[in-house]
């Protein structure tokens, strides 16, 4: 019961904290800064979910934008194309009412996540046969295939993109709440995985697949599950992006997006959740901060990327985490236990 009480406190606490922070931020932040904050949140989810595949399970996946695209497009297709049909039979879904909005969004999230998860299985299966760079190329190629397929589906706008998606997540505090709620979910899941005995099997696959297999770890299942979970989260990020920005187009989900997400994970230190999230913030916000540098900003950005890779090859945090324990240590208190990889 103690556990139940604690869990209730943490979950309710998290929701309350998110709600308070979102209210404060949306009320006080300049809209442009707030937009960048939301973009950071989406990027954090993407980096965190790719970290599940690349960092924790050690699979070389560099086509994450494909899953992001599947989520965004399927989610948006639901709200734009199918929801108006569904609402005829289910008046509950009527847009404009808080209940209808939330339900529609929830369904969008579910379909988006499911579609991305299916895509995850499709990409995850080759991972059973392919390793390293070869797998990387297949994932990259898959991302491109997704993009080209979307370009050719006229119902979702083709090259024009899909516009006029209702802003179901709102543009203010609600959006922040959803996006960062998702971030919290990714973090919580990663943390649980890295702490529990079950979750260690994922790390074992990263460290040594053959040894893991010999120790009774079903590596096939671990890998496919990692792909499914990772891509489902990317899918949800896509759904939220679509319903916040109200328009999506295939060029948003191109190869450069995939590469940036991979960069976030590597820059943060593969396997380090906090590192990935921090790198996501840096890589999203930095180009905005460097905006005053105009033409030069992308040169500086790419040079910095190389320099960081050369000077800190293990990424910003290696496999380590910045956690509250770190702060506590900094404050001079003893670490409260709980081994972290």
């Amino acid at each position, binding site marked *: 019961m103690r556990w139940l009480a604690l869990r209730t406190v943490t979950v309710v606490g998290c929701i309350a904290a998110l709600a308070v922070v979102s209210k404060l931020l949306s009320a006080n932040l300049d*809209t442009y*800064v707030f937009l960048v904050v939301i973009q950071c949140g989406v990027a954090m989810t993407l980096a965190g979910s790719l970290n599940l595949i690349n960092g924790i399970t050690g699979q070389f996946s560099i086509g994450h934008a494909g899953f992001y695209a599947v989520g965004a497009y399927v989610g948006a297709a639901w709200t734009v194309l199918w929801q108006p049909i569904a609402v005829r039979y289910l008046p509950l879904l009527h847009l404009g009412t808080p209940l209808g909005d939330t339900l529609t969004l929830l369904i969008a999230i579910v379909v988006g996540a499911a579609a991305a998860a299916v895509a995850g299985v499709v990409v995850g299966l080759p991972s059973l046969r392919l390793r390293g760079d070869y797998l990387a190329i297949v994932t990259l190629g898959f991302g491109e295939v997704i993009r080209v397929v979307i370009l050719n589906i006229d119902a979702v706008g083709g090259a024009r993109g899909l516009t006029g998606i209702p802003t179901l997540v709102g543009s203010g505090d609600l959006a922040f709440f959803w996006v960062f709620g998702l971030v919290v979910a990714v973090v919580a899941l990663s943390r649980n995985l890295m702490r529990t005995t079950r979750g260690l099997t994922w790390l074992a696959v990263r460290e040594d697949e053959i040894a893991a297999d010999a120790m009774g770890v079903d590596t096939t299942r671990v890998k496919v599950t990692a792909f499914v979970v990772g891509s489902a989260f990317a899918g949800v990020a896509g759904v939220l992006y679509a319903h916040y920005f109200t328009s999506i187009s295939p060029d948003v989900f191109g190869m450069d997006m995939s590469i940036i997400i991979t960069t976030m994970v590597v820059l943060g230190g593969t396997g380090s959740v906090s590192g990935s999230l921090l790198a996501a913030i840096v890589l999203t916000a930095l180009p905005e901060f460097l*905006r005053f540098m105009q033409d030069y900003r992308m040169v500086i950005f790419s040079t910095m990327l190389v320099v960081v890779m050369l000077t800190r090859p293990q990424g910003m945090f290696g496999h380590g985490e910045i956690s509250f324990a770190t702060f506590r240590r900094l404050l001079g208190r003893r670490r409260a236990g709980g081994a972290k990889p």
Partner: protein
Amino acid sequence: MTRSGGKLLGLLAALALAIGLNGCKQQGGSAADSDEIIIGEYASLTGTTATFGVSTHNGVLLAIDEANAAGGINGKKIKLITEDDRSKADEARVVVTKLVTQNKAVAVLGEVASTRSMTAAPVCQQYKVPMVSPSSTNPEVTRKGDYIFRVCFTDDFQAAVVGKFAYDKGYRKAAIFKDMKNDYSVAFADNFAKSFIKQGGKVVGEQSYQEGDTDFKSQLNTLKATGPDAILCPGYYSEVGTIARQAREIGLNVPILGGDGWDSPKLVPGAGTALNGCFFSNHRFSRELELPEIKAFIENYKKKYNETPDALAALGYDAAGLVVDAMKRASKLDGPGIRDAIAQTKGFKGVTGVITLDENRNARKEALILRIDGEVFRVEKTYRPEELGQ
């Protein structure tokens, strides 16, 4: 207990962060009481459509400079803030948000590409800041809201013009070669097909390429086999030249038709002689028209940038000029005030024609058909909207 302790700490940290960020809120003064009026511009200064973006930006800058030299608006100088969106739709939205909310722009100019205009338009609509697009031709753009305007014609009109011209010219079988990645190209192709078929023509083949491809011979060869009288290639000039060369190389010698995406001083260097005798539709801007306002514009532009302007530069100039003109007439120098003034624009004498905005916030302008003749684009024909029943 450590876990909830951690979460509590997190909550406190988040609160601290929120309060900290609170201090960061921009304290920028409101536009009304400063002695500058800010116009925002978002353009593709880098990326795939950089040439269009840079041309347009040059035109806009020229117009603003001229307006300031003429005394600005009610004694206030105009300050143009330009942001680069790197030819990306999602970035267009971010920079427009920045222009509108942080820089407090009272009007926004941009973009060339319709996809990006459509992505950014809702922001302008939401914050009630008028947006004038110099050359987004997709009909959808101005349907995004009553704050969105354009100073050019729309694709359906332009493509219909080309379709009618093709039929009038005696072509009965047309093949289409479009850029799959480019919504302008796709929409143009569709509208052309509609118009051409309505006239009585037939579309015999359709193939596509993607911006960045270097080899088009396979598709062209397939189109050649369909025996067309003409090929519609509504892409950007950067590919059209290569496509034309490769078409001639494989012995496909029929005329190639295109739209305003062709208009660039680089079209001929890219195509060599391969496009001689081909036609494209364009905005009403050509040195050949011998109009005084065009001559003056070209002269001023050359003086400032040391190069010849294209139609996009002229449209940028007109878009900026239109906004400045509306500001002079506006009852109040804020978003809604300027919007109303823009909406009431009648007979604005631009370089690219007389601009009267209709109830759908589109400019009703004539289109030219230009014939490529060596390095010169000759005016072949002029179409008015009324001629096509629009």
